[in-house]
């Protein structure tokens, strides 16, 4: 009896010792082969690309404005150039600012959401798909122009995510997400308030407490598209 008790105690002691050793050998930052300073370095690199992107986008906007001024000078000097047609085309493809009556929609993460860090949880965050759904509903309601956090949404604008980061036109945007639309406010409002149009958003609003607020505005300003236009593979069919 005494021997059995001793053996049980010895085995239990060994197991406890083994577990204690394992416990103290677990080093969180190194366990993934991912030292925290490496993460910081990569985030710095990401930030440098983002800073460069902001600069390039603002440069495009200022250059397009400069181009318009230069065109105006030429336009005043000659009547041959087809500037009216050019302006109409620019309006068609989103290269002009649009102002008018519209809606301002705010989509915000749940108050308990954490977008970065170990506690980041998808259910409390606004996802790219929810922004896409709102933008689609706005266009389906006849919106003339739509922007998300001042990024003009055109026909080939991707709205996507990488991890918990949201990208519109491949540019980073941060919450809260402000979607603006110029168009018939009554039609757009009616569609957005219909729970069947946006079931995921209304469910998340009820269960996770995400923010979804709509404001009617007399004047909404949608900026011109500030990205690149891809036409490398497109050819016109001569008519």
């Amino acid at each position, binding site marked *: 009896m005494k021997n059995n008790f001793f053996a049980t*105690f010895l085995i239990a002691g060994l197991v406890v010792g083994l577990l204690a050793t394992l416990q103290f050998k*677990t080093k*969180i930052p190194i366990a993934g082969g991912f030292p925290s300073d490496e993460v910081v370095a990569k985030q710095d690199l990401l930030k440098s690309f983002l800073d460069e992107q902001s600069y390039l986008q603002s440069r495009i906007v200022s250059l397009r404005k400069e181009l318009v001024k230069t065109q105006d000078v030429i336009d005043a000097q000659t009547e041959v150039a087809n500037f009216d047609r050019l302006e109409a085309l620019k309006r068609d*493809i989103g290269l002009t600012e649009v102002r008018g009556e519209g809606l301002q929609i705010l989509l915000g993460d749940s108050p308990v959401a954490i977008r970065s860090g*170990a506690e980041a949880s998808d259910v409390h965050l606004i996802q790219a798909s929810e922004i896409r759904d709102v933008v689609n509903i706005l266009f*389906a309601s006849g919106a003339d122009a739509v922007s998300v956090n001042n990024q003009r949404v055109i026909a080939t604008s991707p709205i996507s995510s990488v991890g918990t980061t949201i990208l519109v036109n491949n540019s980073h945007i941060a919450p809260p997400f402000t979607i603006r639309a110029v168009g018939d406010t009554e039609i757009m409002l009616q569609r957005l308030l219909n729970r069947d149009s946006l079931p995921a958003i209304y469910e998340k609003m009820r269960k996770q407490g995400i923010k979804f607020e709509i404001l009617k505005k007399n004047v909404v300003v949608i900026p011109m598209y500030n990205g690149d236009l891809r036409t490398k593979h497109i050819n016109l069919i001569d008519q």
Partner: protein
Amino acid sequence: MGKYYIFATAIILGFLISLQSKSYESVEAEYLRNVESNIFQEIKILKDKNESLRREIADIERNIEDFSDQNLALQAVESQINRYMKLNGKTPIFGAGITVSIDGDISTPWVVDLVNAFSNAGAEAISVNGIRLVNGTLGFDTLPRGQILLNGSILSTPYIFNVIGEPSDMISILELPGGIFSRLSSAIPELTIVTEQREVIQMN
């Protein structure tokens, strides 16, 4: 007395096991939070985007330069008109690309996601069942019986997506594990997705 020792040892053991498992969870969370592919993917997207923005800047600067010469200005205007006509959807176009045929019961949000995935993969022009998606196109809508409405037309199956852009690049992105095709097939297993590379796609 021995029973009490064993009981106490079991409690300590249980405590340590749970502590150990929590440590592993924490390590896993730390690792997942910083998954390298995410941050590298982000950097690649930004790098490509910045590169195309630089090309756009060079293009506009060339236009501005051309406008300083009255003779070149007229050519510059025509060149801009030609470029923008390719995008406004009022002139027929053609180019290399892919055709994706989807047969099955698919909902509007998935169609929106699919179109978004094409744009993300580098699409320059997209049409669905012959309707070109441009700035003036009305978005996708769901009718009460579940049919998909686009620009006032009810879309019927199979849904044919014509996409102009670099075919091989687009296919490799769309067919990535965890990409749109893989997610779509997981969500709707009975769906048939057929992708075809084409040298010429025409859109009206």
